[in-house]
């Protein structure tokens, strides 16, 4: 039995007196695609912020590829194999598309500053390698031809795809996608689903995604967790979750409130 890549147990966090998340448990294996759904404010993005150490948990533990992430800095957690995209796009808008990817490439360049300024061979060699890697990655998303455009000038859909490419450049074992289909039309969403499958197989990574678009979630996820008021209220296959009365109530309850 292989141990899971990501093992979260009894995770919880309080903001002031409010329990934003409690008793959150999840085990994710390699190449799994897991969906995280729930009404607004259920604590979905809080889970991502905890997994990436942006928030420090009040309770529970997170183990990533067998290592406890507690006490690590954010960049160290990223380097140990977890990467994410953002609900509201957060690219480095002034940097070119390729620089956005190169900056995230794992295992930073090993040339010194003097070598860079004097343009010594090692600088050229390593820059060339990282450019090639970045271009290959952009090619997966059909964006290689946009490499030198400023990231901020890209159309919305391309920016979303670039965020995924940039996250992949950190060489993660687990990729967290926060509403990747937000603002996309049905055909773009379909294309995104293909891309997600493709990168899962190509890079051998586990993917956890938060999404409101049910066609995407039901179509792509092998397993779904439903959060409401910071608690997991249901989990299972898309079929099981779809027919779960607790889930239906959580969503209908929300509709009544609107």
């Amino acid at each position, binding site marked *: 039995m292989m141990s899971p890549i990501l093992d979260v147990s009894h995770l919880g966090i309080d903001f002031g007196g409010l329990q934003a998340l409690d008793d959150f448990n999840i085990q994710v294996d390699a190449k799994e695609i897991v969906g995280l759904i729930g009404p607004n404010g259920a604590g979905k993005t809080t889970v991502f912020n905890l997994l*990436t150490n*942006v928030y420090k948990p009040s309770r529970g533990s997170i183990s990533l590829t067998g290592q406890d992430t507690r006490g690590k*800095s*954010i*960049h160290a957690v*990223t*380097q140990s194999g977890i*990467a*994410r995209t*953002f609900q*509201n796009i*957060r*690219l*480095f*808008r*002034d*940097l070119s598309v390729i*620089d956005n990817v*190169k*900056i*995230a490439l*794992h295992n*930073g*360049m090993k040339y010194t*500053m003097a070598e*860079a*300024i004097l343009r010594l061979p090692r*600088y050229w060699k390593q*820059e060339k390698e*990282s450019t090639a890697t970045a271009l290959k990655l952009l090619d997966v998303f059909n964006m290689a031809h946009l490499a030198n455009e400023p990231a901020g000038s890209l159309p919305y859909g391309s920016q979303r795809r670039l965020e995924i490419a*940039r*996250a992949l*450049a*950190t060489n993660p074992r687990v990729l967290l996608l926060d509403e990747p289909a937000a603002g996309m039309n049905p055909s773009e969403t379909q294309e995104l689903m293909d891309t997600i499958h493709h990168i899962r197989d190509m890079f051998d990574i586990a993917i956890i995604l938060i999404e409101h678009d049910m066609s995407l979630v039901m179509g792509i996820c092998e397993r779904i967790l439903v959060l409401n008021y910071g608690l997991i209220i249901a989990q299972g296959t898309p079929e099981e979750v779809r027919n779960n009365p607790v889930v239906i109530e959580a969503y209908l309850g929300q509709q009544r409130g609107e």
Partner: protein
Amino acid sequence: MTLIYQLINGLQIGSIYALVALGYSMVYGIVRLINFAHGEIIMVGAYCVWFCMSRLALPALPAVAITVIVCAVLGVSIERIAYKPLRKSARISLLITAIGVSFLLQNLAQLIFTANPRMFTNLFTGSIAIGTQEISAATVATIGVSVVLMIALSVLVNKTRIGKAMRAVSEDADAAQLMGINVNSVISFTFAIGSALAAIAAVLYCCSYSQISPTMGSMLGLKAFVAAVLGGIGSIPGAMTGGLCIGIAESLTKGYISSQLSDAVVFGILIVVLLIKPTGIFGRGDHQKV
């Protein structure tokens, strides 16, 4: 002919302002702090190079190298000790701390070296004749060294991984961390580079204006700050352009109007910039942070 002479003088002092302004601008770009202790780094650099050369009798090159290292270490230490613990607090606390550090360094210098000015012997002797006017070698060296440093800095920021990391942190530090960038080392690196540039500026300044005193950094720092604002604080080409503009404006005022008015003109420029284009020549509005 005097016009050319004044312009060259303006370029000389302007390049020094530009080197110092770069430190203000880079630090502001990364941590959104006006580092008012930056002027004092110049003063420490001046004392350091003076001490190495006249007391330790070191040759110029090692003395300058030591000065650059001392200033870089000082800049990084100030950030680590005084600013880092306040990174998440209100901007005003940081600003007041920076002013506090500035006073601390000034008074320490006064305690150690007394308030009596020290004299620094010029590293560059001789002069070059242009027409009827003589341009000192120090002026030529100042302009030359500054140009080389600014080109090197541009390469560093635009072409290297650490430079790109600096730009990424300046745009969105939280997202940068989540892409595996060590924000603390990027911030330290920025302070080190800014302070090293100030150290070189200190040496160049001392070559033309030989007096070293504990308060020499305040006015020089303040004018460089005006230069950074004029160019657009946070912008590297802005700091370079702003520095040269301020230098030339000052030199032309001295040459054609009155030496006493030159400071008034510099600060007048600050007021006009703040009224008409507060973001400066190259500046853009602050990024919307989410």
